[in-house]
């Protein structure tokens, strides 16, 4: 009875609409984490460009992935470093 009253007055969070919304939200977190391979490649290229200003990296062993677990999405990159640079190659480094 209480259940019914709560639903009538819209106070019940377990109404099937809210269940639907929550399930949809979780499903979409995973769906949307699906980046196209082309986009991942573009991201890799950009990452290599930026990081190469500071260190020498093994470009072939570079791994970039989107990891979705626990309802969150993380960008996980594994970038083997070959050698550090003493100064950065940024053109505007001194200002």
């Amino acid at each position, binding site marked *: 009875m209480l259940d019914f009253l709560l639903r009538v007055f819209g106070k019940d969070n377990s109404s099937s609409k809210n269940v*639907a919304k929550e399930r*949809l939200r979780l*499903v979409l977190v995973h769906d949307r984490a699906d980046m*196209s391979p082309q986009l991942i490649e573009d991201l890799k290229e950009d990452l290599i460009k930026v990081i190469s200003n500071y260190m020498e990296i093994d470009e072939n062993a570079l791994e970039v992935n989107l990891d979705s677990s626990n309802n969150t999405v993380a960008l996980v990159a594994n970038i083997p470093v070959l050698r550090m640079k003493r100064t950065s190659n940024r053109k505007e480094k001194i200002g």
Partner: protein
Amino acid sequence: MGEVIVITSGKGGVGKTTTTANIGTGLAASGLKVVLVDTDIGLRNLDVVLGLENRIVYDIVDVTHGNCRLKQALIKDKRFEGLHLLPAAQTKDKTSVTPDQIRELCAQLKKEFDYVIIDCPAGIEQGFKNAIAGAEKAIVVTTPEVSAVRDADRIIGLLEAAELHNPKLIVNRLRPLMVKRGDMMSIDDIIDILAIDLLGVVPEDEMIVITTNKGEPAVLDNNSRAGQAYRNVARRITGEDVPLMDLEAETGLMYKLKKLIGFK
């Protein structure tokens, strides 16, 4: 120069074909020149929804393969001067045409017509790629269900990737009383999730079944709530600013009771 609009959804059975037929008929009813293109090759249905199934001679594959001229394949509607259908082939499959061929076809059609409306098949494979190839605008149809909204989200991503920006949303088969009860996602819930502009809301309506049985789009029926919603959508497509109809009006027991007693 006309406009090419694709009607898509990802999931099947949410009302793409019904929406295409009704929007097209609605536009033609206001005197515009409209051609509806069925790209669901192998599973053609737009012809029966429009009641034109007995008049098909040539189809879209005949046109793209040069078996006939484009004009010969276009079926003229008997009700409206401006309404035309280019039917899909029934005995071929989605690979019988290519996106390039559809792009070329759309380019030709939009020289002749004010609106070229493309009915997209369900799915995200070749049929979808064909359907969106020549489109300049996209309308995404969904229903207030988890599966349909999820697929709509995927389709919106794919449209974006294909440079079809700012698709518009039609929420079909909404049941206002269930929304009120908290047992169906509301328009706001769906817009919140999909984050695209709303073009229209079509309430669940038995008249859709009845009008489809007869092959007469509901948009022509003044008593149909869904028909009213589609008339509004058609007007919005032409750039008119039409407010959303009051979905709660004329539904529900309370209204009928009040009407009976004379409160309304």
